[in-house]
């Protein structure tokens, strides 16, 4: 024996000793150890031993676990399984015939067969749930999916902008950003009116400042008749009216610039010594078809140059519209000015020579 039995390890020998697995010198050594330490000895009768009982796995469960039904399993002990299987509709015609044949041979089991046939429960149809209507949900209500809500929001925004940009003249969009061309051209008209004032006066130095101011006021009143009407008439609650400014009209027909041009021509005939101080602008003026102006003070658009060519090129690509911008400084021989064309929109301005 290679291992010494001590109080620290005697348990591992004890189990083998009780089960009779110790032999030879190990057995002798362990018995000598127990003699030396009688307090460690265990009474054999108090040592618990679990013994298997006679119970077996349930025969019904065994049959239920099987796949399919084997009629060879039919015995008096398993009869309930087959009777229930018939009641459950699990037997085919052949199996049912075998069962009936077995029952004929064992008549005292017929009562069991009859009772099993009665074990199917029938519902009581008088028992009903009475609160059905309370549980029902309304049918046919419109279900608005989320995407339609988004669409509605977008439509609302579009309507908002449409109304604000179209019919509300007091809105900031309309006043400032809505018609930038009209504002710009109105300012230029005023400027030209001022120039006309100077020209019509013949000798500007003779005209007093107060007279100029008066004339300007009158002329401005001419261009803004609605203001005159409002000043003279009792104040009414006026429905804001949309201020219609059509770019095409400005550029092609009946424009303020065109009227100024006519007036200038008329004045030139009356007093040929007066040099027109405002620039001559052809409505259909383009760099290609512009005529060479006989007036030495005026500068042709062809003589203008684009000082910011990369910027306009890039802007043209970004906006996907042709942009032409040219400018020239006034000198002693010729006047200056600028020419800007964005898509169909053209704006130009010229100044007199120095």
């Amino acid at each position, binding site marked *: 024996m290679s291992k010494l039995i001590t109080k620290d390890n005697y348990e591992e020998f004890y189990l083998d000793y009780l089960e009779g697995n110790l032999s030879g010198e190990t057995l002798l050594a362990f018995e000598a150890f127990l003699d030396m330490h009688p307090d460690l000895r265990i009474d054999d009768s108090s040592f618990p031993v679990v013994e298997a009982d006679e119970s077996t796995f349930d025969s*019904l*469960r065994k049959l*239920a*676990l099987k796949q399919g039904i084997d009629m060879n399993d039919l015995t008096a002990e398993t009869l*309930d*399984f087959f009777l*229930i299987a018939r*009641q*459950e509709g699990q037997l085919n015609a052949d199996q049912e015939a075998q069962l009936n044949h077995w029952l004929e041979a064992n008549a005292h089991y017929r*009562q*069991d067969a009859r*009772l*099993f046939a*009665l*074990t*199917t*429960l*029938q*519902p*009581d*149809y*008088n*028992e*009903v*749930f*009475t*609160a*059905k209507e*309370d*549980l*029902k*949900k*309304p*049918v046919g*209500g419109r279900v608005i999916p989320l995407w339609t809500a988004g669409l509605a929001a977008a439509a609302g925004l579009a309507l908002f902008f449409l109304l604000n940009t179209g019919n509300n003249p007091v809105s900031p969009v309309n006043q400032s950003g809505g018609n930038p061309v009209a504002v710009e051209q109105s300012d230029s008209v005023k400027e030209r009116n001022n120039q006309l004032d100077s020209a019509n006066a013949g000798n500007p130095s003779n005209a007093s400042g107060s007279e100029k101011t008066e004339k300007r006021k009158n002329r401005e009143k001419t261009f803004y008749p609605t203001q005159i009407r409002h000043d003279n008439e009792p104040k009414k609650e006026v429905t804001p009216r949309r201020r219609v400014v059509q770019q095409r009209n400005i550029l092609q027909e009946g424009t303020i610039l065109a009227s100024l041009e006519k007036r200038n021509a008329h004045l030139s005939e009356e007093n040929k010594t007066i040099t027109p101080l405002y620039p001559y602008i052809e409505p259909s003026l383009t760099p290609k078809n512009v005529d060479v102006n006989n007036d030495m003070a005026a500068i042709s658009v062809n003589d203008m140059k684009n000082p910011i060519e990369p910027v306009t090129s890039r802007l043209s690509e970004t906006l996907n519209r042709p942009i032409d911008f040219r400018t020239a400084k006034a000198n002693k021989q010729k006047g200056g000015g600028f020419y800007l064309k964005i898509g169909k929109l053209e704006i130009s301005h010229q100044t007199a020579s120095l």
Partner: protein
Amino acid sequence: MAVLQSTLCYMNAKEYNNAIDTYADNLFRFVVKHTRNKMLADDIVQETFAKVWEKHEDIQAEKAKSYLFTTAYHCLVDVMKKESRSGSIEGIERKGNSDTAHLFDIQKVLHEALERLPEIQKTVVLLRDYEGYHYDEIAEITNLSESQVKVYIFRARQTLKTYLKDIELVA
């Protein structure tokens, strides 16, 4: 018998209402057999439909019945646990058999016998006999294996048969 539209689409309000018409009574009978309390059964059926409506967009219309019975069974288990703790069910139980007096005698005895079955056996045999569910469907509703369902049904039938036999011997 109204039948739910067998489409692949999910349950909408109309199909939900059809399910109420079609299955509410079945659910009620199934539940009341367990609770033996009609008011409690009403509550469970109502709760079942409320839960189904919460999930109706995820439930295929053709599987509505199975979903309803599964939900009802889970509600039932929860309620039975609570009620058995408080003992309220026991106070009502087994008094109301006069309600079944109109039934044939055999069915009356059978329903008396049903009261003696363990709850799980009662559940599976009711689903089997009342609703005609197959074993696999009952297994799905009750979260049991198919063989467990089979065993419970067989045991329930044995108990019912034994009860009938005892009554017959007494008579």
